[in-house]
C-alpha cells in the first residue's frame, strides 16, 4: 500500500491526489486480478518446459 502511495512523483496537484486515492481504494481489486494474470503467464511458461 505504501508503495502505491509513492507512485506519483508530483503529489501536490489536486487531480493527482484524487487519482492516488482511487488507486489506494482499488488496490485490493488490482492485486487480486493481477494474481490471476500472473498465474496465466506462469502456467504458460511451466507448460513449455
Amino acid at each position, binding site marked *: 500500500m505504501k*508503495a*502505491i502511495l*509513492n*507512485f*506519483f*512523483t*508530483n503529489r501536490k496537484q489536486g487531480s*493527482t491526489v484524487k*487519482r492516488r486515492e*482511487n*488507486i489506494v481504494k*482499488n488496490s485490493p*481489486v*488490482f*492485486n487480486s*486480478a*493481477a*494474481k*490471476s*494474470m*500472473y498465474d*496465466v*503467464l*506462469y502456467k*504458460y*511458461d*511451466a507448460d513449455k518446459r
Partner: protein
Amino acid sequence: MPTRDNQSYILEKIDFEGIIKFVNQSLINQYKELEPVPQISPIEINNIRDVIYRSLAVYSNTESYGTFSKKIAFIFYSIVKGHYLQNGNKRTAAGVVTMLISICVDNIYNNDEEFIDSFFISAAETAIYIAESNANDSKEVIQYVESWVRKYIDAQN
C-alpha cells in the same frame, strides 16, 4: 511542447521505478513457493525504466509515440521482447502495463468484475502473443497491442 492526450500527461508524472519494484515484489511474494522470482537489480530497473522513457521521447517537437495507446504498446512489446530479466519478463511486462493503464485511465475499476477480469486476462494473453510473435512482424504486433489498449480506454469514454 507537443499536445498530449490526458493519459500521456499523467503517465509522465509516474514514478516508474516504484511501479517496477512493486510488480517485482508482488511476483516474489506470489511465487516464492513455486519458482522463486529474483529480486530485480538496479541495472534491470534502469533497462525497463529506459524503455518507458523512450516511449515518452520527443523529437523536433513531435512525440515518437503520439498517443497513450501507442506508448503502452511500445512499452509492452519492448519489455516482453527485450528479455531484461532472468525470469518473469512477461509477468513483469504485464504487471507494469496493467498498473500504468489502471493509473492513467479514469475509472477503469468502475466497471463490473467481468470487465476487470477480462482486462487482466487479456493482458496475459497479449503478453503471450507478443512473446510468440516473429520479430519481423513487430509493426503488426505493436498495432494489435495498441488496439488492445484502446479498447480499455474507449470503454471509459
